[in-house]
């Protein structure tokens, strides 16, 4: 870990990396740089096989700060590289030629902050609609210049007469929500795929700046409605880290149980929805039958079926009861018996295997360039599960393995998700066995949180992969900036590359295998 600081110092002239306390900040090393040195530094990270975890912007009114977060997959070494940008004429060099994921993050920052990235191949808008007047995330009103408005909604298919476009979405059965993918077709083959986002942009990051830490809690459950517990957990962990709140053991274990139940729930839905994409509807209904059991159990403690808001800073909303424990045990028992059914109905099915084998193959190098996360990353053979690699809560006390794929294709992601469900069941069993008594809420949690000045980056492993929450506090009761690095967004980035040259049906299969949740991408 400390090595990287030395190496940067040695390789890049004038760079002054600072090592920071990982438990406090969530990253190991910070480095401030200037636009001319940035490409060298980024290239260095690329050589050292880091991946670009996140690229974000913060408006400090006096200046805009671009934050590049780099990390390695297996032994976490997170480096924060910052770059100050003039708010009047925000310009920065584009890193999209080095990291493919930067292509997307830079577009996002461009439309929310107005930062122009020189050398970016396609500086058009991704999320926003046409009648936007001000840059949404800038402090104070910074109007969108008129020439920028032409960049809005730039992708208009069908203008050229000699190309054949298909709009997959926004209302399309296979996009699971309101993603729009514009496909340029050659017969049944895809020449180019271009996702168009923002059909469900619900301004979560803007809202975070407008309300207190507590009031933002319900939003976390609505970003990723399939794995709300993980988002809940990530958020409370981040704020607890920021405010140095300790959590009683019972709460930690209940959090693990609830999160893992939710993970199973999410993976189950994915299995069903994926099979529905491939044309088989019955598994969809079977998985919902299992899901209902989980939802019953979770409704018993949280009071809602889907968009949970159960964790609180320092503990839980309310304690679990015997009914919950009995229900969970019953579910675990039932679920162990269900895998053979899915094996017969889905996993072994020759049609299913032929549809998914060799489709959407991701290599480890691609996964790194795009910052792919979760089961998709693990299908490429990289055993990166943040529950193990960057353990949080009490996951280091749990025994489970990290399933990895051999080929990186859609079939591998399927197998990994099934194996993860089994792992989650094991974790639940262990957590139930270890579940201690005692309070479920820390004693001294102030009603109004005013964290100390500073920033923090907290990661958790959601069902879809790495969720990173970056919070900047300015000592007020609401965050200065809250950035959500969401797994579906980075997984979607790779889709155009995977879909190129594939059949339309394969594109649907690939899109399904990425397990996208659109509100999470759009935020």
């Amino acid at each position, binding site marked *: 870990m400390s090595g990287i600081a030395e190496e940067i110092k040695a390789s890049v002239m004038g760079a002054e990396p600072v090592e920071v306390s990982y438990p406090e900040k969530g990253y190991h090393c910070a480095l401030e740089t200037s636009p001319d040195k940035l490409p060298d530094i980024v290239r260095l990270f690329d050589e050292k096989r880091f991946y670009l975890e996140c690229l974000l912007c913060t408006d400090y009114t006096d200046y805009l700060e671009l934050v590049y977060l780099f990390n390695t997959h297996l032994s976490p070494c997170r480096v924060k590289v910052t770059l100050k940008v003039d708010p009047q004429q925000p310009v920065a060099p584009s890193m999209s030629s080095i990291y493919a994921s930067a292509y997307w993050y830079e577009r996002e920052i461009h439309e929310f902050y107005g930062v122009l990235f020189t050398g970016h191949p396609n500086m058009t808008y991704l999320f*926003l609609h046409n009648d936007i007047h001000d840059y949404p995330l800038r402090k104070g009103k910074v109007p969108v210049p008129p020439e920028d408005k032409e960049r809005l909604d730039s992708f208009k298919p069908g203008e050229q007469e000699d190309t054949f476009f298909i709009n997959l979405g926004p209302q399309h059965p296979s996009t699971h929500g*309101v993603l729009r993918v514009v496909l340029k077709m050659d017969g049944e083959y895809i020449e180019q795929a271009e996702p168009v986002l923002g059909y*469900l942009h*619900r301004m979560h990051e803007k809202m975070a700046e407008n*309300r207190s830490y507590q009031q933002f809690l*319900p*939003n976390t459950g609505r970003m990723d409605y399939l794995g709300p517990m993980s988002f809940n957990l990530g958020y409370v962990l981040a704020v607890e880290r920021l405010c140095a709140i300790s959590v009683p053991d019972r709460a930690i274990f209940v959090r693990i149980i609830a999160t893992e139940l939710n993970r199973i729930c999410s993976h189950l839905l994915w299995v069903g929805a994926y099979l529905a994409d491939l044309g088989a509807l019955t598994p969809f209904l079977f998985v919902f039958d299992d899901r209902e059991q989980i939802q019953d159990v979770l409704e018993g403690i949280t009071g809602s079926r*889907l*968009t949970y808001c159960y964790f609180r800073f320092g503990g839980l909303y309310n304690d679990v009861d015997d009914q919950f424990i009995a229900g969970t045990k019953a579910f675990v028992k039932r679920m162990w018996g269900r895998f053979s059914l899915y094996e017969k109905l889905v996993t072994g099915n020759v049609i299913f295997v032929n549809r998914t084998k060799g489709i959407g193959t991701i290599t480890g190098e691609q996964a790194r360039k795009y910052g792919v996360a979760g089961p998709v990353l693990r299908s490429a053979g990289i055993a990166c599960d943040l529950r193990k690699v960057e353990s949080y809560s009490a996951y280091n006390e749990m025994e489970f393995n990290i399933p990895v794929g051999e080929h990186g294709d859609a079939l591998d992601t399927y197998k990994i998700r099934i194996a993860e469900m089994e792992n989650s069941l094991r974790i639940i069993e262990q957590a139930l066995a270890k579940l201690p008594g005692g309070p479920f809420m820390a004693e001294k949690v102030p009603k109004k949180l005013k964290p100390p000045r500073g920033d923090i980056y907290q990661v958790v492993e959601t069902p879809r992969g790495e969720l990173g929450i970056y919070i900047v506090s300015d000592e007020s009761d609401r965050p200065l900036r809250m950035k959500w690095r969401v797994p579906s967004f980075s997984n979607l980035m790779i889709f155009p590359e995977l879909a190129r040259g594939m059949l339309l049906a394969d594109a649907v299969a690939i899109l399904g295998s990425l397990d996208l949740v659109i509100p999470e991408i759009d935020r």
Partner: protein
Amino acid sequence: MGERGFHLEKEIIPVKFAMVEKVLDLARANSLWPVTFGLACCAIEMMSTSMSRFDIDRFGAGVFRASPRQADFMIVTGTVTKKMAPVLTTLYEQMPSPKWVIAMGNCAISGGPFVFEGQYNIVEGVDLLVPVDVYVPGCPPRPEALLEGLLKLEEKITGTRRFPRVESA
């Protein structure tokens, strides 16, 4: 874009033949095909409603059509953003009348928890875009609530309620 949906007439036959109309209404009420249109969280609960536990197909409303041309009503499940609004109205206009809309979930009804001062991307209620017949509140509503909404819609079409009423406090 506010008023676009409203001038569409519900009735297609100017002269009403009472008996025929009644039979038609009965048929329509019992064969409501929704368009597959999921927006956000509530879409999952809409799926739940059509799944084994709740089985919306019992009322003949289980035929989810992906093409709006073949659907009778639209369940708006979730937040409608300004970018989505034109798509939604297009979809509504593509449906052949008579057609209905159920606004499911608080986001669809009023923008829900995403309404705040200075918001720039949410349509505050789908009834600003298309006429809404039944509102099902909740965040998200339980599947029972959607079923209740469906029954309310049937009630609206036929004028009578065939099913027992369920009171809850």
